[in-house]
């Protein structure tokens, strides 16, 4: 068990090192001639007005919110699906009830127009 996680851990290091080393090497090879105009924020040639951190609509937040709830729901359901053989029909219906309660949330979000992209 721990051996598999050792592999995953080493894989994380390797997977980060590969692009990291490539980017580092290219940084050595590539020319470095920065100037004021070149380092300007790119806005299709127009000068940037105001600060770059503009205000956002709450719509983004609502998508992330619904996603979070369904993500947690899925985390509950994965062990349920793995243990499926050992479950009685009653236990399966408990899981289905769990899903149906959250479907109510989806319907609410839909009805309230929270899923519309404006």
């Amino acid at each position, binding site marked *: 068990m721990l051996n598999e996680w050792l592999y995953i851990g080493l894989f994380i290091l390797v997977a980060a090192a590969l692009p990291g080393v490539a980017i580092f090497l290219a940084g050595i090879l590539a020319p470095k001639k920065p100037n004021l105009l070149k380092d300007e924020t790119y806005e299709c040639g127009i000068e940037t007005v105001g600060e770059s951190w503009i205000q956002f609509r*709450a719509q983004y*937040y609502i998508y992330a*919110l619904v996603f*979070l*709830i369904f*993500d*947690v729901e899925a*985390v*509950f359901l994965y*062990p349920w699906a793995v243990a499926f053989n050992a479950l009685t029909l009653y236990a399966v219906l408990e899981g289905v009830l769990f899903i149906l309660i959250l479907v109510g949330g989806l319907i609410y979000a839909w009805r309230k127009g929270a899923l519309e992209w404006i």
Partner: protein
Amino acid sequence: MIPTSWYLFVAAALFCLGLYGVLARKNAIAILMGVELMLNAVNINLIVFWRYWGAKEVAGPAFVIIVLAAAAAEVAVGLALIISAYRRRHTIAADEIDALKG
């Protein structure tokens, strides 16, 4: 072979850091982050004691999942409240949001 106490001390330190964040920070989002750290410390403890008792009883892990749901609900509603408060009063300093009526 890692001593049980190491995990518990790390969890205790994480909990206290979170506690400091909750008590000291002004920004309401920072307070929520502190709460997240505290919940994580609790989760570590639950898993450590699951291992300590021989990984047979499933109570600890089951509780971790329930804590996860609670954390998700707390973050969702907490941040929604913060955003709403920001929209109405243009501040998210926890000590300035003191009126009960919007």
